[in-house]
């Protein structure tokens, strides 16, 4: 905090700036979630470019730069952008992004021509009329009751409340139309009207935000917090809550860094809106990497763990089969690697792990199973051979094609499932290749119960190919 204290920190200035940023972030992320779900994330950007003719028309009609007519004009064109986009998409069968691109560039060009045409008689600079800056928030105030509150905060507060009410009142409709529009239609929900309502609110939020805090903030806050939240949860209420929190957090942190960070390099403060967007981006990338649900790191770790445990089971089963055959050949690490197509590092790790657990014994460069290791391996081999028997017996698969499938399924077969397989194949004593099926040992189930096939989609979740039987 000393770094911040070094610069000037005034609650009546910075407090209001942060308030405006938080309100903008919350209002945007409320509707932004539904944009992301409907694959219309670019609409915020499109609207913020497209409203130019609305502003120009409002200015030309009223002849003044009062904010209310401007706001109304911009909001109307904002809604029009959404409608035209949908119209072109439906009638012209053009992809959503393309129709958005056609509409907003055309409207912007139209607005530019209107402004330049009007420029002969009046002075209207698009840059300064269009886009407010969040840093100027505290300058323009309104008296509300006894308090002197910045106009921007009042406007954004109203927009936030409207968005909140909309989402709460039409929660069921929004949810259903976003996730399954066809079902919503068959249930007789007014999905078209819900859509238009949402588009109107997106337009109003975008216009209210960019005329007060700048357009980049609203574009960022409509997409980034919602995207980050969707990496953390699949439930809609949590999605909305988390995205609002992430939005608010990036607004606060963004302003702090805008003031503090430039000081480290000897500069004065930099663009607050820019830093808020950037902070949201940084929070997003943190979530993408570290999210416990679908983060890159955890996905990678999970996949590695699965790969190792499958390799480990394969090693045990491999040793078991060799010992069963009374093969005179030595079981060395090199041979295992070659047979199981694994890297030497992975094999070494797995071997060390099983030796530490006392399931493998090592003599020189040769390996053998301990008592507990043999029990474990026997269950795996049992699963494998029961599967082979089942595939030939019940699924009618040719004998020469069963090994590969059984090899995959064996890792996801628990005690209950093995018993069922045994029952269905009429308690065989040997597999289709004529090798004996080990009996269910005295040991309780040693196969990792978490991966038992009873869990249904387990094999898919771990990115393995679904067995095709």
């Amino acid at each position, binding site marked *: 905090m000393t770094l911040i204290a070094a610069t000037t920190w005034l609650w009546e200035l910075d407090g209001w700036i942060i308030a405006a940023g938080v309100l903008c972030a919350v209002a945007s992320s409320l509707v932004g979630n539904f944009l992301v779900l409907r694959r219309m994330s670019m609409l915020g950007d499109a609207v913020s470019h497209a409203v130019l003719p609305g502003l120009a028309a409002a200015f030309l009609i009223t002849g003044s730069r009062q904010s209310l007519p401007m706001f109304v004009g911009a909001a109307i064109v904002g809604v029009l952008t959404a409608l035209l986009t949908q119209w072109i998409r439906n009638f012209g069968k053009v992809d959503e992004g393309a129709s958005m691109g056609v509409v907003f*560039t055309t409207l912007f060009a139209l607005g530019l021509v209107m402004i330049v045409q009007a420029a002969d008689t009046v002075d209207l600079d698009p840059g300064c009329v269009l886009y407010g800056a969040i840093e100027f928030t505290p300058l323009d105030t309104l008296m509300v009751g006894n308090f002197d509150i910045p106009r921007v905060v009042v406007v954004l507060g109203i927009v936030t409340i409207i968005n909140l009410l909309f989402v709460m009142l039409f929660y069921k409709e929004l949810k259903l139309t976003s996730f399954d529009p066809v079902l919503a239609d068959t249930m007789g929900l007014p999905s078209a009207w819900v859509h238009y309502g949402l588009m109107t609110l997106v337009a109003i939020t975008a216009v209210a935000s960019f005329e007060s805090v700048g357009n980049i903030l609203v*574009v960022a806050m409509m*997409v980034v917090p919602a995207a980050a939240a*969707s990496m953390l949860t699949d439930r809609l209420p949590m999605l909305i809550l988390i995205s609002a929190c992430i939005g608010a957090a990036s607004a606060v942190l963004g302003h702090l860094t805008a003031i503090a960070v430039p000081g480290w*390099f000897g500069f004065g403060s930099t663009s607050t809106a820019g830093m808020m967007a950037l902070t949201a981006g940084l929070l*997003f990338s943190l979530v993408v990497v570290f999210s416990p649900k679908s983060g890159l790191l955890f996905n990678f770790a999970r996949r590695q763990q699965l790969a190792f445990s499958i390799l480990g089971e394969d090693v045990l089963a491999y040793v078991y089969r060799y010992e069963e055959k009374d093969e005179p050949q030595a079981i060395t690490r090199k041979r295992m690697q070659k047979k199981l197509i694994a890297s030497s590092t992975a094999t070494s790790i797995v071997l060390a792990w099983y030796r530490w657990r006392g399931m493998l014994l090592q003599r020189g460069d040769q390996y053998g199973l301990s008592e507990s290791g043999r029990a474990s391996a026997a269950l795996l081999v049992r699963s494998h051979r029961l599967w082979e028997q089942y595939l030939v017996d019940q699924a009618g698969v040719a004998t020469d094609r069963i090994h590969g499938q059984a090899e995959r399924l064996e890792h996801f077969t628990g005690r209950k499932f093995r018993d069922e397989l045994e029952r269905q194949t009429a308690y065989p004593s040997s597999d289709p290749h004529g090798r004996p099926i080990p009996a269910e040992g005295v040991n309780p189930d040693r196969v990792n119960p978490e991966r038992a096939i009873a869990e249904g989609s387990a094999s898919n979740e771990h990115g393995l190919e679904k067995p095709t039987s």
Partner: protein
Amino acid sequence: MSVPAFVSLCAQGDSWSRVLLLEDYNTRLVVIATTLLGLAAGVVGSFTLLRKRALLGDALSHATLPGIGLAFLFAPSLGLDGKSLPVLLVGAAISGSVGMTIILVIRNLTKLKEDTALGIVLSVFFGGGLALLGFAQQMPEGHAAGLESFIYGKTASIIAQDAWWILTAGTLSLGLLSVFYKELKLLCFDEGFASSRGYPTVGLDLVLMVTVVLVTIVGLQAVGLILMIALLVIPAAAAGFWTGNMLRMAVLSAVIGGVSCMVGSVLSALSPGLPSGAMIVLTSALFFLVSMLIGRQRGVIVQAWRRWRTRRRIDRRHVLRGIYELLEMQPTSFVSDETSQAAAGKWVSAAALLSSRTWSARRMFGEVQRLRNEGLLRAREKELSLTASGLVEARRLTREHRLWELYLITHADVAAERVDRDAERIEDCLEPVMIDELETLLHEARGGSGVPVSPHGIESTINVARTS
């Protein structure tokens, strides 16, 4: 005509000819540079459009800003001028490429969708860029003002160097696209198939993105953000209404882009009140609108016409078959003999026909009127009857319908109550060859015209139609 008006007209005529003959150096330059850009962007845009990434140019344009800021900040420490064009171009290209890579990473490694990836890169990079420009404005070397104009463009003041940049970048991207044409085409139309055939889809996506980066960056500083996005999206979308062939679409899109730029910048040169960038966008939007209406492949009018024709054909079947089935039900023994013309001229009630299926009276009587004009139908007050040729046609259509119903029952194991509806879906698509095949399968006389007995009660279908 008053003298001043005449003089001004002459002056105007003079300026017209000057512009149209490209006599002004400046006009000539603007027209040539924008046209080249329109050509290149049109080709690149048609690929991104088919890849369902039309707004890639939008995201990329915004993503160049941090690169520009960084180039300006760090160029002096490398002994370069922070505002020289090549330095800024390199900065923009680098940050644009980083943005593109992040889009690919987000799309391929997380569950987030294409549009979300674009939105994230666009807003976060632009925000970062604004923050960097905040630093740049405080540089002791000063005069960072005007850096933003890099992405907002300056169409009216294009210089010869810009045209050369555009030509180089355009040629390079065209070269890349034509070298990887076959692979990119496969990627655009069927990504799953391309990756199953072992094509490096991520690498191909990168190639496509490199071409977008090349064209966008030279275009951005010459004509600005909005025009650049428009040139990448609108001509390609317009061309899509005319053809479904990739090569033709790319060529057409280039032509539309080029012509829009030419017309737009000439219009702007004619009147000082019309900014050239905006005029180019509006011209290409006009092309889009016209294409959307009258495009031969997917235009709105063509589609409506096709729909209308299909509806007519189906209504015709329904009316003729409906009358035939009503005739069958008449108590006066109906002669199903194929040569008999006894049924022709027998009257059935129009009300019964109307209630035999769910259609509006307007739609049915419209079709009745058309059939009367064809001479297949006669009508008197509230009653209809088939002419001799109408009977032949009705018999043929009913026969096709029932052949298919029989096929469904005997070969596809569909329940008899359900075949009527299934047969209605398919009967319109039955080719003569298919009818022959059905006849063989069902042991009906080949080329005969005997109508098989309906496999289900006609009454029941009418009831089903009524209740559904």
